[in-house]
């Protein structure tokens, strides 16, 4: 009997086990939606959307804001006045000081404040210690220049009644038409309105008001408004004015409702781009529902959203409230300077063609609605007309991207976690053994002793200095992670100092805030505090952060900040920062202040006497406008699947046009195990990320490139070596970004702003100004891709010179070992073809120049070169050349792009001396004329100390057309110096 039961029981147990396993495997890990708010769950967003709905649906909507004409003053590029807000249920008006600044750069800035809060004439609830003003220090963190006021701006009597006009910008071609009632502004270029403020009447600035306590029975949700306003037509939803709960956390909102919102329209513009960071297409979608559109606005509230979903307006780790609108041959932009939680609705309306004006087609207008929880209404307007103009103007304000050290744009090998110092050394050796170049190896949180930053786990990283020394032997670097949460544990000097010096973020009661993160109970350093900033700087000194060397750099993660037990995985909004600003006011800037403190800490870590002349490298996950000055960003915790690979391209392109081009995505995908094909394709794509790092979650299998096996390892190595060979081109692109704000990888619209058909293309990219056009394969099993060629120009396959011609869409074969990469005619691309172990070991290698001849037969390209590590370039220690090939004379010239100077600095001379032997070893000319057949020699003449130093001949080797491939030729060892002036005659 027992035996029988036994066997039955076994079966039952087996089935149960099976069930358990099924449950285990079907558990799909993905973003926990319920952890993050929708607009409907975010009181001020819901209120403002409802406000917009009312405005749109009420036929005679009269926006309650007007500019008091008598208050308007204009002086030295600044217009001031008072906007009056008429209250719905009373005769009172609220006074809102208005400032419109016109800058020399052609940028206009509109700032609206609230007089009572400005004067501190309000009462806070709950005895809050919070500052009474609207947050007015965002500019302190974000704006670093470009604010010199326009001397030429001038008011003119408005052509329409009730308006004030200001002419400004280049040759006065820009105009701001300020409408008094209802208050609104049209920004015009050449007489045509490009950007309109409050055209739809959504302007809303929630003024301060005392809370009116109502009888308890009125408090039922959904009823109170009706009860309070029963006699009025317009009602307001007050349910989230005074406090708000989400996911078990209650926000006490001591300042009551204080949101700011405005509609900004772009008449005639079909596309808008920007407001990074989101996982979605580059061209922003509509957000008010509809087929294939979003139903929630784009949200900016920096959050630790792991395994984020694709094609979503959901917020991610960083926020850049900068938007560009694009129509044929015109780009304009706005920058919404506000650090609080922000939502942006996008809608498009198409006017049908006017039947009375023949030939005029209907046009699309993009309307946007910007909604922030608190702070000032502070908007910058850029009128273009080229994409570059808008980005340069934005970059002048928020700063240009850092010129990184050369290693930072080479390949980074990361994993959570390399488990011991020996593990690191072993990976280092194995990369060399497999002849795979890499520059940097990374350590995630496990290197610390119990997640205490600035310590090393003595068991696993007993000898960090020895490890760093080994890395340094081949000019390699170590990056170690340092996060803003400080473990709350006794006998840990960092937390002891943090507490005793009172440098942490405070809770709403004003005590040190305690939350939960990797180490468990933690405190957060408040980098808004200048004292915290100085203290943070002291922690990185080599004698303080023992075990770090000069080749140790830093990674800042979790700086949104991520708080595991906080609302939406971050801090309570009523927490208090330095100056008693509420966290709600500064949230989106928080990550940047931490990144900033670390950047300066790295600058300051050397002894006074050998002041660090080396550019810091600090990677950040959270960012805001201005973070580009401090280092690189990556797109956070992505997943090892094809959609995430695909999404990485538009996401990084979006960062590129948002003034923060030093961006990348985790190659291979952070969560999960990529197939070998996916890993290979990801490396091929990653070779075109400005920031190129392989990374993996702690629970994934090891995936260093040499583990993939053949043919994968070989193909991955080719992709890595391609990146290294093209480093001179990449570095030049970084320099361009550093000086003009230009994206490093560029979307089609940016390169071809006149080509409407290509505006939405976001799966192919141009590398800097090199004419290199790549379209990484992002689908499984692909053997080819379609590449869109926007212009009437010839394009050549990078690897075999196969010829294509635009404008059209071409098919390019892409078996696994091939990256679809074309060269646009008319460019000269600098390369260094000798494979080395790291980029530092390529410093004195010779160059190859690739001249790609297109329709015109002319070509040019630039090269920027410096020591790749120090700030000496700021003192002139660099080489900056323009290579120009002119078909008329069949000559290639190398010209100096450095500003002419009578006496070059000492640093300049030293640098040029160090490079005096570095030559051009090869010149490849693609698509050479038939007439070159039989040509054997070219004439080379060099300029020495400003004089021509005679001529010599170099051999030319000609290769005819084969099938669809272009004819090409190679100049054998012209021997000309990379830093010198010279001329090669092909005639």
């Amino acid at each position, binding site marked *: 009997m027992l035996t029988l039961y036994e066997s039955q029981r076994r079966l039952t*147990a087996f089935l149960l086990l099976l069930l358990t396993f099924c449950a285990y495997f079907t558990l799909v890990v993905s973003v926990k939606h319920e952890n993050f708010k929708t607009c409907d769950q975010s009181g001020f967003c819901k209120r403002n959307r409802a406000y917009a709905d009312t405005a749109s649906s009420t036929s005679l909507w009269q926006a309650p804001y007007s500019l008091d004409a008598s208050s308007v003053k204009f002086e030295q590029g600044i217009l001031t006045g008072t906007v009056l807000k008429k209250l719905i249920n009373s005769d009172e008006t609220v006074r809102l000081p208005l400032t419109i600044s016109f800058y020399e750069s052609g940028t206009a800035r509109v700032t609206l404040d609230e007089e009572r809060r400005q004067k501190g004439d309000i009462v806070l609830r709950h005895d809050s210690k919070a500052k009474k003003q609207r947050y007015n220090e965002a500019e302190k963190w974000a704006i670093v220049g470009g604010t010199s006021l326009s001397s030429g701006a001038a008011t003119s009597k408005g052509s329409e009644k009730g308006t004030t006009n200001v002419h400004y910008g280049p040759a006065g071609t820009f105009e701001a038409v300020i409408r008094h009632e209802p208050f609104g502004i049209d920004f015009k270029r050449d007489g045509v309105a490009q950007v309109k403020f409050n055209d739809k009447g959504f302007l809303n600035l929630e003024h301060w008001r005392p809370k009116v306590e109502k009888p308890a029975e009125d408090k039922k949700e959904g009823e109170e408004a009706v009860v309070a306003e029963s006699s009025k037509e317009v009602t307001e939803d007050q349910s989230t004015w005074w406090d708000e709960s989400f996911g078990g956390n209650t926000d006490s909102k001591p300042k009551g409702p204080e949101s700011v919102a405005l509609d900004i329209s772009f008449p005639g513009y079909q596309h808008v781009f920007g407001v990074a960071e989101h996982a979605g297409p580059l061209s922003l979608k509509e957000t008010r529902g509809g087929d294939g559109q979003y139903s929630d606005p784009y949200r900016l509230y920096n959050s630790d959203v792991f395994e984020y979903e694709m094609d979503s307006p959901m917020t991610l780790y960083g926020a850049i409230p900068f938007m560009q609108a694009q129509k044929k041959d015109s780009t304009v932009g706005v920058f919404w300077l506000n650090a609080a939680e922000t939502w942006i609705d996008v809608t498009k309306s198409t006017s049908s063609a006017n039947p009375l004006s023949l030939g005029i087609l209907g046009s699309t207008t993009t309307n946007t609605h910007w909604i922030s929880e608190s702070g000032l209404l502070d908007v910058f307007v850029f009128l273009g007309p080229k994409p570059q103009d808008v980005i340069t103007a934005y970059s002048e304000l928020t700063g240009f991207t850092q010129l990184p050290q050369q290693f930072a744009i080479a390949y980074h090998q990361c994993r959570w976690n390399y488990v011991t110092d020996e593990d690191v050394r072993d990976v280092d050796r194995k990369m060399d053994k497999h*002849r795979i170049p890499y520059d940097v190896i990374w350590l995630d949180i496990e290197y610390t002793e119990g997640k205490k930053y600035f310590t090393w786990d003595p068991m696993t990283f007993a000898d960090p200095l020895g490890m760093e020394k080994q890395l340094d032997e081949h000019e390699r670097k170590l990056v170690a992670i340092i996060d803003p949460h400080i473990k709350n544990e006794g006998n840990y000097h960092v937390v002891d100092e943090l507490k005793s010096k009172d440098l942490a973020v405070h809770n709403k009661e004003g005590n040190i805030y305690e939350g939960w993160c990797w180490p468990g109970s933690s405190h957060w350093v408040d980098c808004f505090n200048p004292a915290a900033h100085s203290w943070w700087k002291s922690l990185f000194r080599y004698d303080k952060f023992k075990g770090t060397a000069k080749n140790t750099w830093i990674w800042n993660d979790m700086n949104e900040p991520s708080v595991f037990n906080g609302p939406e995985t971050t801090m309570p909004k009523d927490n208090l920062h330095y100056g008693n600003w509420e966290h709600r006011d500064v949230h989106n800037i928080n990550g940047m202040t931490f990144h900033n403190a670390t950047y300066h800490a790295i600058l300051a870590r050397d002894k006074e006497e050998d002041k660090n002349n080396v550019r810091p490298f600090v990677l950040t996950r959270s960012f805001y406008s201005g973070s580009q000055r401090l280092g690189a960003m990556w797109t956070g915790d992505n997943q090892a699947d094809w959609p995430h690979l695909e999404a990485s391209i538009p996401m990084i392109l979006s960062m590129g046009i948002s003034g923060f081009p030093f961006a990348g995505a985790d190659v291979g995908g952070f969560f999960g195990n990529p197939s070998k094909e996916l890993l290979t394709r990801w490396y091929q794509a990653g070779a075109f990320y400005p920031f190129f790092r392989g990374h993996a979650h702690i629970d994934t299998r090891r995936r260093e490139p040499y583990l993939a096996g053949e043919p994968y390892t070989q193909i991955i190595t*080719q992709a890595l070596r391609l990146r290294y060979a093209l480093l001179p081109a990449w570095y030049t692109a970084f320099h361009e970004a550093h000086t003009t704000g230009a994206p490093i990888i560029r979307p089609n619209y940016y390169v071809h702003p006149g080509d409407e058909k290509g505006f939405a293309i976001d799966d192919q990219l141009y590398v800097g100004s090199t004419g290199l056009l790549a379209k990484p394969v992002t689908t499984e099993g692909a053997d080819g891709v379609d590449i869109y060629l926007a212009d009437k120009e010839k394009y050549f396959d990078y690897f075999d010179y196969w010829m294509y011609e635009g404008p059209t869409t071409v098919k390019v074969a892409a078996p696994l070992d091939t990256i679809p990469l074309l060269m646009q005619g008319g460019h000269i691309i600098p390369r260094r073809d000798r494979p080395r172990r790291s980029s530092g070991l390529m410093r004195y290698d010779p160059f190859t120049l690739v001249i790609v001849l297109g329709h015109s037969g002319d070509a040019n390209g630039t090269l920027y070169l410096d020591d790749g590590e120090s700030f000496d370039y700021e003192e002139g220690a660099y080489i900056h050349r323009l290579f120009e090939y002119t078909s008329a004379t069949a000559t290639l010239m190398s010209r100096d792009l450095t500003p002419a100077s009578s006496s070059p600095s000492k640093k300049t001379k030293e640098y040029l001396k160090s490079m005096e032997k570095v030559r051009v070893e090869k010149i490849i000319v693609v698509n050479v004329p038939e007439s070159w057949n039989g040509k054997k020699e070219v004439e080379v003449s060099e300029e020495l100390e400003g004089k021509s130093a005679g001529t010599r001949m170099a051999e030319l080797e000609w290769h005819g057309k084969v099938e669809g491939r272009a004819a090409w030729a190679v100049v054998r060892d012209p021997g000309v110096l990379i830093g010198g002036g010279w001329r090669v005659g092909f005639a």
Partner: protein
Amino acid sequence: MKAKDKDIAKFYKDATAFTCISNPATALPIARLNDDYCDCPDGSDEPGTSACAHLSPLSPHNPANGAGAAGSNTTLALPGFYCKNKGHVPAYVPFTSVNDGKCDYDVCCDGSEEWEGVGGVKCEDRCQTIGKEWRKQDEARQKSLGTAGKKRKELVAEAGRLRKQVEDRIQSLGTEIEGSEIKVKQLEQEVADVERKEKGRVVKGSVSKKAGKLGVVVGLAKQRTEELRETLERVRGERDSSTSRLQEVERILSTFKEEYNPNFNDEGVKRAVRAWEDYAARDKGPDVDAAHDRDLDAMTKSDKENGLDWEEYEGDDDDSEADVLYAFESYLPPSIRGWLDQKLRNLRSTLIDSGILADTSAPSSSGDSKSVTDAKDRLTAAEKEVEKHRKTLTEHQDDLAKDFGPDDVFRALKDQCVSTDAGEYTYEVCFLSKTTQKPKKGGGHTNMGNFVGLERIVVDDELPPNGKGLGSGERIAMKHENGQHCWNGPNRSTLVVLACSEVNEVWRIVEEEKCVYRMEVGTPAVCEVLGGGGGRAGMEGKKAGGVRDEL
């Protein structure tokens, strides 16, 4: 002319022209030899520079890479830059490392690969020191290898002795089994005899005894049955409440597991989830099933309902005791009775068919006397002994058939353990048994895999100067599988790769992938067993000696 190997040097003899080694059609003026420009499609014109370093299948395709055809299989004719290393062993440096501004003394002790002095680097000749040190270590290594070889011989001898032991034991077991079998036969006879003698007695006794005894037994049985039923009911109630509480807790935990945030990596939470998973994956033993419950229901009903009327027995004792005792099926409700009857019959016949149960269909006596029991016990014991011997024999035979490596050598190491400290753990391998991770801070040991077999793998590692490493070539490895299950991963497994060493020692432990470990272990057991010194952690490796032989 830059350094080249003597065997290759013949290609470079001509003082006026040079012909590419693999492409004899391409002839170059001698000035193009080592002029830092790559002319030959096989790179042979640049034996002393890095100009042809890009000629490799690892480089991106490029029409300008030599032959012109895109994607052509470009392979270098030379293994690398030749370092003479006078005073030491010659070696080849990869061309990618030539003139990059870093001295690669580990390969090129004479520093000749940085002849150009790029960036002002000067690599002095260190071959005297390095060579001397190397020779010293090599000598020590050779000496150690000699000792190791001797030790292996000892191990092999020991293994032979152990094998012999097993063989001897097999032989003696054979004899023992024979003896035992005879004994069993004798005992069987004895049982038969005793039984025959006892048979009459039982029948007699049964007749002479007064039947009134049954009444007492029934009274006691009734009382006892009542008690048992009450207890059963109580226990069942307790069981049900525990089960429901357990289910509730399990529900809480599975929700917890689904909803917790794995990204947060809170150790406490992770530990709890892990423990829960282990728990959930474990065989939870018998579950409450309907049939079982039905039985219980039936058993806890009153005896009358179960068809048992005590009064029937208390008053009247006509039936024989044996009949009552064996009619136990009547205690059960009719529904179960039928089912049970069927099952029992099936079971019985199965057991009888397989020889586990004796066929008692023939009527047998209802009880054995003491002498019969004793005889049977003796028989059973004897049978068991035979069984035991046979089992031992099989084990020993299996043991002989098992793979103990070349010369049976691992037989001598069986169950010997060696360990090493790495990080916060001590790692241990017990030969032919298992690998274990032991936390230094205390806490439970983790099984990293149980030995499943030997295999041969090819390794390619740099050999450290002290010789404590795998080197390159074929090596014997011990596979260990099915260790403790890993959080978010597989069952732990370990590959223990062996190389020659004077003593048994763990050199290195790495977690190659999540919960997939690799141990590098030195042992004299594998010295000089693979190829000509392959398994010997000798002096091959990066030194050019080996490379030259290939040319």
